């Protein structure tokens, strides 16, 4: 089945022409770089998104610590991941890149800090 899709890999937002049979990509055109084809394949097979949110802290200089998943996770797991994030509290100083929760939800991605935070 033919359809169009917008690549979200970068701000250019290429409009992709997709031909797919269910979850199997047959062809993709319209991408300005090679990331477009990879995005289209992933999006047809199993959409993935990087989750960014913030985690409550205790005893640190800001109340919230921004965090991200170290790699994209299944789009359908975003809300489950948000529920799990709400149970976390970070109480030790961190740097950008410090792992806050390893192998988060068993998804193969770590939850990592996006900025340094010192003790209050």
């Amino acid at each position, binding site marked *: 089945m033919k359809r169009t899709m*917008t*690549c*979200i*890999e*970068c*701000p250019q*937002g290429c*409009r992709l022409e997709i031909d797919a049979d269910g979850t199997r990509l047959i062809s993709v055109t319209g991408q300005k770089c090679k990331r477009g084809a990879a995005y289209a394949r992933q999006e047809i097979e199993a959409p993935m*998104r*990087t*989750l*960014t*949110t*913030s985690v*409550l802290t205790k005893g640190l*200089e*800001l*109340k*919230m610590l*921004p965090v*991200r998943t170290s790699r994209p996770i299944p*789009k359908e797991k*975003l*809300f489950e991941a*948000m529920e799990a994030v709400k149970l976390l509290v970070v109480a030790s100083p961190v740097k*950008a890149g410090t792992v806050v929760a390893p192998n988060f939800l068993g998804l193969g991605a770590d939850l990592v800090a*996006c*900025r*340094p935070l010192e003790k209050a």
Partner: protein
Amino acid sequence: MKDRQLVIVGGGPAGMAAALAARAAGVEDVLLLERDQHLGGILNQCIHPGFGLHHFKEELTGPEYADRFVRQVRSDAGIEVSLRSFAIKLTPDRHMSYLRPGAMEEVRAGAVVLATGCRERTREMIHIPGSRPSGVYPAGLAQKMVNIEGWIPGREAVIVGSGDIGLIMSRRMALEGVKVKAVIEIQKTSRGLVRNVVQCLEDFGIPLLFQHRISLIRGRDRVEAVDVVKVDDELKDIPGSGFSLPCDTVLVSVGLIPENELLEMAGAEIDPKSNTPVAKDINLTSVPGIFACGNACQVYDLADSVTRDSELAGSLAAAYLGGAGK
């Protein structure tokens, strides 16, 4: 009054890039003023990814993008960072006064770079009629509340304006469990990046209503509903097209206004429509030795572009200082 070579106002992406570029071009003494308790500016509340693809060739969140510059600035002994410091006065011959905790400082700057960013346009500026209940926020303020202060502003929201901040906040609120009823856009297209329409709205099933506007905000103490009406190509209401959306929160994302009060005080010419400096080229102002960069100079879509252009501002200031010293 102390003499300083280069004074930069604003420690966001623009000010940090200008400071580093000026140092690279040989300026020995840089004073970087930041009114917040951290460097990074608005990047600190932009916790979503999408930064750094041009500058670092990888996708970073706002705080990560900021952190890379903060570490460079902090490790450079030629840059003095003064936090919680608020510039209150600038004269045409570059005498600057600023407040910091416990003191008012006065400096005489060889050159000045203003990297003061923007503030948000508000509900009042686009004349949304109705009552004045609580629950109406500029979207960037709501972003700060959610991402930095850790407060969720409501349970059911309507977003006005489909610029990037409105789109990003729609997703952020949806992730936090807020029911985002709709994004209302008076124009036929979004001003935001198309990738944000896809990943912020379509991913979460949030309707984007083009050629619609809010005709009334209802509610006495708290927002209770908004009335929405469809408009024609001349932006006139289409009779009979109105409907009401119950909600307790309205986020207004209707553009940014460069903050150029210091530049105005210094006697520079400012375009009253865009609030940007009038000058013959980017980063310049009509006052010699005073430069502007980042969102204070023109409103940018991408932080990476701010970095690129602000580096130029830093080298322009260095060249000015070099010339003035000879």
